[in-house]
């Protein structure tokens, strides 16, 4: 096949894929988990992680101690959860990094807990 032929086929395939993506965008439902809808299971897991790893500094009610209060304020400070995740993963001044100590699920869970669980 010539280069032009290959490009023609490829463009056709990619066009179909793009059309499929558009159709999926309109038709696929996301199920229940919504970014702004707290997930109860995740919060429960997060409470455990929090008690084990964060409470000493941020307080049992999230009202602060060595570290700042998190209760009620994190969702405002970090409208974007991935920025909150960044702080937890890599740390910041006296806040230790947890990226090496917690797995992805534990981190997602503790974020959910600090945002919606106190």
């Amino acid at each position, binding site marked *: 096949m010539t*280069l*032009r032929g*290959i*490009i023609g086929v*490829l*463009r056709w395939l*990619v066009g179909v*894929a*793009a059309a499929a*993506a558009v159709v*999926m*965008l309109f038709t*696929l*439902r*996301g*199920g229940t*988990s*919504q*970014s702004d809808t707290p997930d109860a299971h995740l919060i429960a897991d997060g409470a455990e992680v929090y008690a084990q790893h964060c409470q000493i500094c941020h307080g049992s009610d999230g009202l602060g101690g060595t570290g700042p209060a998190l209760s009620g304020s994190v969702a405002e400070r970090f*409208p*974007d959860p*991935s*920025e909150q*995740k*960044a702080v937890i*993963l*890599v740390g910041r001044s006296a806040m230790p990094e947890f*990226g090496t100590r917690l797995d*992805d699920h534990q981190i997602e869970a503790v974020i959910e807990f600090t945002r919606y669980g106190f």
Partner: protein
Amino acid sequence: MAETSTTTDKPVGTALLVGLSTAVSLGLYASIHQPTGRALSTIGFTSTITMKNWLTTTALLLLLVQGVMSIRAQGTLFTAHPQSTRQNDVHQLIGTVAFALTLPVVFHCVWSLGYQTPTLRVGLHSAAGCAVYGAWAATALMPWHDQERRWIRPTVGAVLAGAFVTTWWSGALWYFTSVSWSI
């Protein structure tokens, strides 16, 4: 993108119009669609985020290859007139592959996250992401040669490149440098 209602050259006008409406409808849909917060598939990567980061970065590298080839062949970037049809073909081949790589990425951006503006970075990302697709639609439909307005195609190409770099920087590079490089 420039207004083109006065254009006499139909294909160029149509291409720009399609591009503009692509960008606007993508943005509108991303704003009104209820974000699902979910991933459909991470095609082997450890998470949606890492999949998006690496696919985007690969696509950016392909666009860089296009740029380097264009500089080597013509000494310029974004020229409307490639010197050979072969060069034109290779450009299209690479562009098509890069476009394909971005499809799963943008699908998850729009379906899962939506148009968000909590910070300047994320707002820029959403807007630039829409502009990428608008410019892409326009370049794909636009004739290579427009005798009267040689600047149109290069301009759309430059918008595409600029928007793509912005999208990559505010999505992938930010994540790489402030969170992690994991795959």
